[in-house]
């Protein structure tokens, strides 16, 4: 995962670089939008970490010009907490996620991975979430390289969650995807399927949370 960090605070940028290098991700650092525009035009990056408040052109301007050129590179926006409105506008301007300063580096890394996964999900046959690897072609899941014993419905459900990480899925959402019209099902059936899946996933980094009254949410805790 090759990343480009656009951040004007040198000390923060340095820390982030050290942190990601330690994790084994190559990361380039640039201090201003003007320079970033140049390197983005001839270099390829998997992910952009973009500070909004920059000297000269703002992060928004870069984001806007990227999107208007049709560049779909995933962008994670870093924003100061005071500018609460920023996160709204950041998403409006085409950012994929945001993180308010100050942040936990572990959180930053997790968000980056999530974005990368979402991006790669369509392209590759494998979805990797921490120690869980799901093979889309073979319809099999492995935790720490041990293949899980999953029934087809459980596999379907796992795939649905993996494709909708960090999003709330209602029971209706799930039943619509898992069952065809003629199949009879009960909400209980989904509960049972989920309970078995959770048991199988024990020890993996994927957590499936139940929000009563709302639905289910899958999150990779790596």
């Amino acid at each position, binding site marked *: 995962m090759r990343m480009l960090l656009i951040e004007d605070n040198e000390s923060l940028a340095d820390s982030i670089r050290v942190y990601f290098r330690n994790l084994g991700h190559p990361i380039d650092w640039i201090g201003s939008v003007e320079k970033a525009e140049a390197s983005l035009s001839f270099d390829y990056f998997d992910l952009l970490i973009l500070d909004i408040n920059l000297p000269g052109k703002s992060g928004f301007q870069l984001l806007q010009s990227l999107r208007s050129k049709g560049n779909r590179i995933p962008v994670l926006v870093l924003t100061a907490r005071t500018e609460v409105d920023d996160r709204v506008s950041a998403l409006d301007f085409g950012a994929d996620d945001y993180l308010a300063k100050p942040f936990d580096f572990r959180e930053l890394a997790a968000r980056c991975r999530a974005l990368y996964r979402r991006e790669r999900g369509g392209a590759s046959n494998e979805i990797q979430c921490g120690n869980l690897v799901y093979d889309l072609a073979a319809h099999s899941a492995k935790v720490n390289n041990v293949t899980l014993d999953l029934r087809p419905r459980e596999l379907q459900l796992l795939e649905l969650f993996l494709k909708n990480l960090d999003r709330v899925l209602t029971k209706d959402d799930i039943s619509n995807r898992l069952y065809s019209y003629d199949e009879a099902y009960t909400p209980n059936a989904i509960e049972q399927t989920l309970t078995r899946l959770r048991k199988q996933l024990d020890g993996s980094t994927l957590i499936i*949370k139940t929000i009563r*009254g709302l639905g289910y949410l899958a999150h990779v805790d790596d």
Partner: protein
Amino acid sequence: MSMTEKSYSIRSRMLGRSALLLLSIFLILSLGVWHYARQSANYSYDRLLNSASLSIMEGLHVYDKQVDLDLPYAAFEMMQLADEDKVFYQALGTQGELITGYPDMPLPNELNEDSAIAFYNAHYLSEEVRVVIRHKRLSEPVVSGWVTVVLAQTLRARHKMMNEILYRSFAVLFGIMACVMIVLWVAINRALEPLSSISKSLASHSLLSAEPIRPTPIQEVSPLVSAINDYQAQLLSNLAVMKRFIADASHQIRTAQSATQAQLDIASQSENLADLPEHLSKIRQEHERLTRLTNQLLTHAMVVHRGDTVVTEQMDIEDVMKKLLTECVRDNAHRMIDFSYQCEQQLPLFMGDSISLREAVRNLLDNAIYYGPEENQIEICLQMDASCIDIIIDDAGSGIPIEWREKALERFQRLENGLNGSGLGLSIVTSVAEAHGGKFFLEDSPLGGLRARICLPKERTLC
């Protein structure tokens, strides 16, 4: 206070309008005076003319079978009272024949025999004249019929008298007007004096000094003085609150900073590398606390600022709460917390500030997570009754004892439960609730912990 309105002086405006009013009164009175002067001049000299004509009439008598006139000297002496006026006269006999005098005197258009006397104006020998015509019936054995005396006088004395009355009246009127103007000027100045004295005392007086403006004995002005004093008192109390806030905030920030500093110092001095993780974890703890404090201070400032200035917008409370809860679940997925959401009925759109409302509820959720036990249960529950929409956050934590709840809503009042907190979170929620015209309550939760309830007024919903 639009800028287009030109500035003006009450004093000159009042004076100007009074002057205008006085001027119109002056004009009306002048018209009256003119009329009066004319009337009285005419009246006086008509009387003179009348007496003289009467005296001439008495000089008419029958002599030798003919009507003859013995023109009385007294009549002319009387006429000479108007000493600059010419006199014309004529006496006509019973057949209308000229007895004596000017033969071609102007007669009135219609001779009215019924009234013994008539006055009229005419033109004679290139002079404007006032004429009196008088009839008398003679009934002597030899001559009987009406005899006539016509007497005319030029108008110089009348004009003179009229002018004299006019000049005098104008002088008096003018004097009165001048006096009234002076009195008005003094009165207006006196009336405006309290205004300038207040502005003087305001100018020399700092609003931030604790001393109020001296009360005035003038009844009309005392509301202004007390309004200013109220305003000042309010400003002072706000200022005091702000001062205390800044003092508290800086105390909190500096305490956290010193703690971090201390841990850093200890860590750097420590020779035992094995101790380092422990120091680092303490530093991280202090830093987390500082971060949280900073976030809350800024949120507080933002919320207060938005409450003062931001125009409300249409918002879907359910949508905001669902998103918030999703975010919260995602961020706390690794914790053993059960989240739930409950909304029995469709809520109408609400006029409010979604950003500050979201901040408030996020604070409540954060509190529930932060202060709650490892295995907790947190529920967002939206309810609507006749008067308000309730946003309820329940938790299964230890709660706040009833006697501390009121205190917990105050800024920087941290409860002695051993956990670190800024003491700002609940006060932010209170501010937001109040900015929306609602209220914030701490209650017992059916889950066993604390129930935080934001009650938003239903009037602000769109139906």
